[in-house]
């Protein structure tokens, strides 16, 4: 059991929770994740560790409400207990002095890029960060990102905030103008694919962090598998961070759609239940 100590609404759909999990906090490293289950009938979902404090024994998670489980989690309040909070899982990102690193965070991927940017910056790297989202409402942690970056760019697809367009357009400008030694990108698969295509053209080493569907998170089921460098890899134990130039994104995008119908059905049932319970709360 892990108690929710702090809950913050970062944007209407993106929530942050600081959770009491001393064992996880003590071992957590940038790049790792937890698998959580928060009620008896619940599924096990992976969430990246967005921040951690070993002294306080807390771990921060950030999630976007995209399906039934995340909507449900979003309704939990401070003081509530998360039934299972397993971690830290996955391998940590290699932390060393690379030189000039560009950190790209897209959508809710801004959360996992933060601890990586912070770690890289603390090791003396020059960090340029680019964060982007569909629209202004989905941008969060701008201040946090700025505090760990030498330079920060913000984009929105619709131009409601920052520069209009995709993160890749800023990235292209940066890599053309400056020497870049490493790119780290976290976000939707399609974004990571576009980033990798771009950096491959410029021969810049690129790390991406994958977030496939998982069950156990410990290498026991193979649900999280994908092709990296023509080999089958389990994201939960071999990753989640991989060489972006070696990942088969199309395969992963197909795998991510496996349960689309079921997710939709679960969401409809959930919404209907909410309408019955409290008609005024469903605004969307």
């Amino acid at each position: 059991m892990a108690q929710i100590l702090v809950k913050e609404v970062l944007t209407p759909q993106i929530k942050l929770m600081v959770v009491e999990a001393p064992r996880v906090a003590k071992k957590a490293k940038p790049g790792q994740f937890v698998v959580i289950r928060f009620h008896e009938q619940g599924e096990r979902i992976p969430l990246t560790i967005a921040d951690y404090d070993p002294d306080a024994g807390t771990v921060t998670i950030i999630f976007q409400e995209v399906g039934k489980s995340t909507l449900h989690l979003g309704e939990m309040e401070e003081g509530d207990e998360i039934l299972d909070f397993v971690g830290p899982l996955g391998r940590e990102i290699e932390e060393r002095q690379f030189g000039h690193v560009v950190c790209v965070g897209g959508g809710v991927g801004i959360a996992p890029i933060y601890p990586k940017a912070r770690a890289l910056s603390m090791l003396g790297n020059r960090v340029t960060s680019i964060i982007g989202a569909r629209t202004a409402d989905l941008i969060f942690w701008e201040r946090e990102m700025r505090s760990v970056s030498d330079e920060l760019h913000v984009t929105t697809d619709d131009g409601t905030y920052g520069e209009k367009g995709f993160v890749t357009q800023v990235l292209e400008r940066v890599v053309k103008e400056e020497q870049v030694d490493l790119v780290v990108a976290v976000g939707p698969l399609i974004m990571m694919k576009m980033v990798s295509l771009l950096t491959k053209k410029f021969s810049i080493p690129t790390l991406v962090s994958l977030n496939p569907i998982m069950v156990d998170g410990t290498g026991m089921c193979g649900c999280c598998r994908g092709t990296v460098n023509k080999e089958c890899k389990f994201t939960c134990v071999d990753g989640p961070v991989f060489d972006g130039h070696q990942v088969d994104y199309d395969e992963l995008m197909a795998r991510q759609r496996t349960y689309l119908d079921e997710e939709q059905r679960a969401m409809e049932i959930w919404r209907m239940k909410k309408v019955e319970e409290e008609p005024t709360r469903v605004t969307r």
Partner: protein
Amino acid sequence: MSQDKFKGRPKMPQRPVRERIRDFDEVPTGLEEWAAVEEARRCLQCKRPLCMRGCPVEIDIPAFIALIAEGKFDQAVQKMKEKNSLPAICGRVCPQEEQCERECVLGKKGEPIAVGYIERFIADYERDRGVRTPSRSSPNGKKIAVIGAGPAGLTCAGDLAKMGYGVTLFEAFHAPGGVLVYGIPEFRLPKSIVFGEVDYVRSLGVELELSTVIGRSVTVDDLAEEGFGAFFIGTGAGLPYFMELPGENMNGIYSANEFLTRSNLMKGYRFPEYDTPIKIGRRVAVIGGGNVAMDSARTAVRLGADEVCLVYRRTKNEMPARVEEVERAEEEGINCIILTNPVRFLGNQNGWVTGIECIEMELGEPDESGRRRPVPIEGSEYVIPIDTVVVAIGQGPNPLLLETMPDLTLNRRGYIETDPETGATSRRGMFAGGDIVTGAATGISAMGAGKQAARSIDRFFQDPDTFPQWR
């Protein structure tokens, strides 16, 4: 093969096919009391009972059977539990036909005593009356960490707790039981039985720490610092093997571990009441011929597939699954496609599997396992159209924990090497047993290993100086 001559060996009553394939409830219903007693009376009470030789934990089989024949059920339970603390489980999933029943003298004439059915009867008798907590020694203040709550870990933890040790049982999943809970389906082993046994182990004073991945959440070295003086590793063989064929990562292709975990542990068969979905197509192919394959195929039937087939590269004779389970699978309409091996998976534009290209096989010379090696017949390729595949070709050791202990000696295949006499590993104070030592085996051998290790750990604490160092 006239059966009538040997009046006796009862048939296990089971639910009719039409009824049982619609739900996940248990299929065999267990012997009635009179049938169990009658069968017990048939036992010859051999002076040198061969059956015991076939039992991996050396249960005093004639003794407990004699007590049942006399109607002394309570004493029979006691007798059984001297050696086997999980009889309700073993009575259901042990491959008796390869163990005690294979050795039984009456088996020479074709009708061995139904040891397994009797075992199940007596265990259920006890369960129906509520499990009693046996006496345990007073706490001796020594702390032991048991890693993995499968049959090996549960048994080791229970035995040590009885001796007075302070035992903490660590489990990565959110539920204890190991394969018994995430792998073996409800219709073969009801989870309430496993949880009943777990409650019993807890009642002995064992602390259970779930959702704790040793090697990640906390390491063995951390635990040693926390004061744990000895370790037992019973982490099983949980790493699923894939066939490494083109197209294997397409949607609709599951490892048996994933398929069974979604259905059993996560209760995917009750989606959307439970959140975890499981996809089942109209035509399902399960690749493999072991218990895991049977369980997957029979699960697919219950999840509503129109057609389920097993694809196996040898013949039915070589199938490692229990004969009884193969029979039940066939009764349930599962079609065994033998002497056939997949060569690649075919799919559609959206990345969903649509078929398996297979090649026909014939049996050649015997291999190391003594089974005749299947050899492909050139040019015999054909396509089986399917929309769901479950790959059940075996499991290996999960390196997650082992990687954190470079000083631990592993064998060539990545399993832990142990002293066959004691279960000790190359690391002092660390013991191991079950599938993580033997490779995927049986519940009962895992329990036997847990028992052996508990005895050794006790010896290790009594007199660490004389305890033999392994390797």
